[in-house]
């Protein structure tokens, strides 16, 4: 044991110490904020619970999008910058079906069927957009240096955003309310919004399904094999192209559903709506350890909860006014902190540095 400590001390450089001090400073400030908030009792217990539930449901959406980032990253080692916009494509297209169904009254008379149909349409749209993007923008560049596909992905992101702006217009469309999901319900004595409950349940179910797919099916095994080593996998008879396409389909389908859920929570769709959730979800994927499927889920929920709680819990305790404006600062600070203390993310142990 003492050998280990000695080795550790030898290897310790002033950089690590400075970086840790930096991280510790942020932590201390956060703790002071929390103490201040609790001491002053700005919010009731009820309100805190609301924050947490909102955080979990938002986190569920982040996690679903983050899975798309992480799956693609695990296999291609590229940031699919356009993934947030693939999410938007599903949500925005789903809106038109929702509006039509609402117009004919089916939306509220058969809510479950309507919701399934809308999700199906959103999924299909997202998948189609993702497949076209993969085919046109990413596949020809598989062997290019890493900056090149990154720029293509940024280009694809703009292209998708402004394509949908051209197709559907630049207005903010109000997503119709589904009557059975309006209002609150009681779960274990907790009063929570029905929409949030729906989102939390659905996102957890989907994630469990995805995890099972990746872990226990043959296709999932092939996916993990390709993530491990493309060349060896192809020698073992895995069709690498096929697996990559599958990965994009899977990620996009989840993003499409996440889009509908997001629209149900925030009740509006817009051509630019994918940008911020996209970045947040990528942040979540990195927090959890990019390339790691359970990590993305964990990262999503953690990020969602921190974002919901952070402004009230930490910033208001520090005496910062209008703290909700700074929730993105909380998200990115969390990211920096996690990376300072765990450079590969919370669960990303297997991804060795050389791969990154």
């Amino acid at each position, binding site marked *: 044991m003492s050998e280990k400590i000695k080795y550790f001390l030898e290897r310790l450089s002033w*950089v*690590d110490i*400075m*970086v840790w001090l*930096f*991280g510790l400073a942020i932590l201390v400030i956060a703790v002071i904020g929390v103490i201040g908030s609790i001491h002053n009792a700005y919010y009731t217990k009820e309100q805190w619970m609301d924050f947490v539930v909102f955080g979990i449901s938002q986190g569920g959406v982040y996690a679903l999008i983050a899975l798309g980032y992480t799956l693609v*990253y695990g296999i291609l*080692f590229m*940031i699919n910058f356009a993934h947030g916009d693939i999410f938007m494509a599903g949500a925005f297209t789903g809106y*038109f079906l929702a509006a*039509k169904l609402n117009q004919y009254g089916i939306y509220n008379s058969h809510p479950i069927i309507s919701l399934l149909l809308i999700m199906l349409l959103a999924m299909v749209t997202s998948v189609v957009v993702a497949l076209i993007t993969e085919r*046109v*923008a990413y596949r*020809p*560049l598989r*062997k*290019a*240096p*890493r*900056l*090149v*596909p*990154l*720029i*293509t992905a*940024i*280009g*694809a*992101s*703009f*292209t*998708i*955003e*402004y*394509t949908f*702006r*051209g*197709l*559907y*217009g*630049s207005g903010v469309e109000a997503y119709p309310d589904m009557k059975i999901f309006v209002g609150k319900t009681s779960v274990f004595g907790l009063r929570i919004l029905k929409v949030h409950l729906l989102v939390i349940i659905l996102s957890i179910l989907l994630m469990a399904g995805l995890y099972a797919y990746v872990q226990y099916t043959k296709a999932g095994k092939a996916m993990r094999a390709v993530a491990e080593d493309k060349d060896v996998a192809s020698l073992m008879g895995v069709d690498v192209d096929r697996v990559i396409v599958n990965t994009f389909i899977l990620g996009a389908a989840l993003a499409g559903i996440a889009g509908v859920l997001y629209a149900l929570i925030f009740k509006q769709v817009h051509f630019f709506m994918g940008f911020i959730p996209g970045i947040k979800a*990528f*942040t979540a994927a*990195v927090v959890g350890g*990019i390339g790691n499927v359970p990590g993305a889920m964990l990262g999503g929920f953690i990020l969602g909860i921190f974002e919901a709680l952070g402004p009230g819990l930490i910033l208001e305790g520090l005496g*910062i006014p*209008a703290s909700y*404006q*700074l929730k*993105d*600062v909380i998200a*990115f*600070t969390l*990211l*920096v902190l996690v*990376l*300072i203390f765990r*450079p590969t993310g919370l669960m990303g142990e297997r991804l060795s*540095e050389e791969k*990154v």
Partner: protein
Amino acid sequence: MDSQNTFWKSAVKNGLLAGAIGLYSTLVGLVQAFNKRAVIEQLSLGHITLLLSWGVVAYVFLNHHRESESKGKLIAAGALVGGLGAFLVALLPMTAQWVDYHFVFVHAGPEMYSLLTFGKGPWLGSAMLVAVGALWGILIALVVSLPTFWRDSVVKAFLITITVGLLSDLFTGMTIGWMFQPFLGVEGLNILGAVLVFGLSIAYDYWSAHRKPKESAEAVATEPAGVTKSQLRRMVVGALALVVVAGLPLLLGSYLSHVLNMVGLYTIMGLGLNIVVGYAGLLDLGYVAFFALGAYTMGLLTSTGPLGIAHWTFWEAVPFSILVAMVAGILLGVPVLRMRGDYLAIVTLGFGEIIRILALSNWLKPLIGGAQGILLIPKPPLFGFKIQTPIHFYYLILVGIGIAAFVAYRLRESRLGRAWMAMREDEDVAEAMGIDLVVTKLTAFAFGASFSGLAGAIFASYVGSIFPHSFNLLISINVLSLIIVGGVGSMPGVFVGSLALVGLPELLREFAEYRMLIYGLSLIAMMLLKPEGFWPEPIRKRELREEVGD
């Protein structure tokens, strides 16, 4: 027989593809929006967009089969691809009476249908549209079956003519615009101008093709000692370039000078980010943070408004803007010292967003103005004279670029520059060779940030008031894209890149809605066709070609 079948099958496939692309550009609204811009007489950019979306597919397809198929079959296939492409687009006005496309697609409506059908009603008009598509396909087949030299020359001339027509407004904006009047219509080129440009382009091709061998042989043969001919020529070209650069704003007028100024500011930033990304290989997506810090420092130190704290002049404040950015570069560099690749990218992106959100927040509003920003930033004085108009600023920015380029160049050639590049190639090997990674990384961040700070300072003084909204992620992405489009690590590439990504969109302002779409599409196309950039470093180019090639 089998290959025949596949030929026609793939012709149908390509026709469908052409139709899909045509439908896309129609529904996105490109055709309709571009219809307002005449390029050659009555032919609008909208028409050209449609023609191009069928034409590119047809050209690529036919060109692929150029050697193997007979001319007659090529023509038939061209007609098929063009006609089928047009038919798919024509389905829109034909079915519009039964289907309400407008519910989903905002641009679908009577105006679009009548545009597509030449105002002749759904049936006759659609037939005409299909006929136009088929004829266009035949025309392309004819061009494809020309001898190689003439084929390339005609295609090139066609594209050049469109470009000149599109940019013809530039000529009228110039102070010597009257010289071009005879060739211009109310908008765009007139027939005479178009024919002239087309002819000139072909003539130039013909001339350069028949001149080349003689010239190069001569150059090798006559190389006297002392000041060689090529050196002399380079000096003359350099002097001429200097005169042109110095005189440009006087020639271009106020608006185009403003465009050039934006290009210039992005060039300064690009030179800085080039140090971080191009030399040191550190992917930074939050570069706008330093631009914002430079601008806010300038604003706070010089503003004559309520937020100004020092009422300094521009010249006193500039060093501080640069210093603040530099220190911020080091501070933000420390936590990311241990991060690599994409982790670095997302964290720096986060930093950029944090700076913007803080600038926007109510919390810091008493200090830096929140969403209302900092107003009343004075213009730089110069010996009793005020640098005020875009034309004046052009020279200020030119000096800025000069200094930035000089510093960047000297840095690259220095020991530090070589250390950066060694680190870019392989961190571990560089460290083993005795390079201090910490110092090397932090200096890269510091120098990169200082350039951005300079650009921010000039920007603040140029626009006179700054708002948090001017410092969004888009700027970081723009700067990163422009150095990659220009060629990573290449200094002339930075300038070419900013001309292409900042200058051109600025000129396409009137298509504001579609600027970003075109920007995105061209980024993709650029990376697919020319991943090494317009003006790559020679080494980089070789590397990239090898990697992409296999």
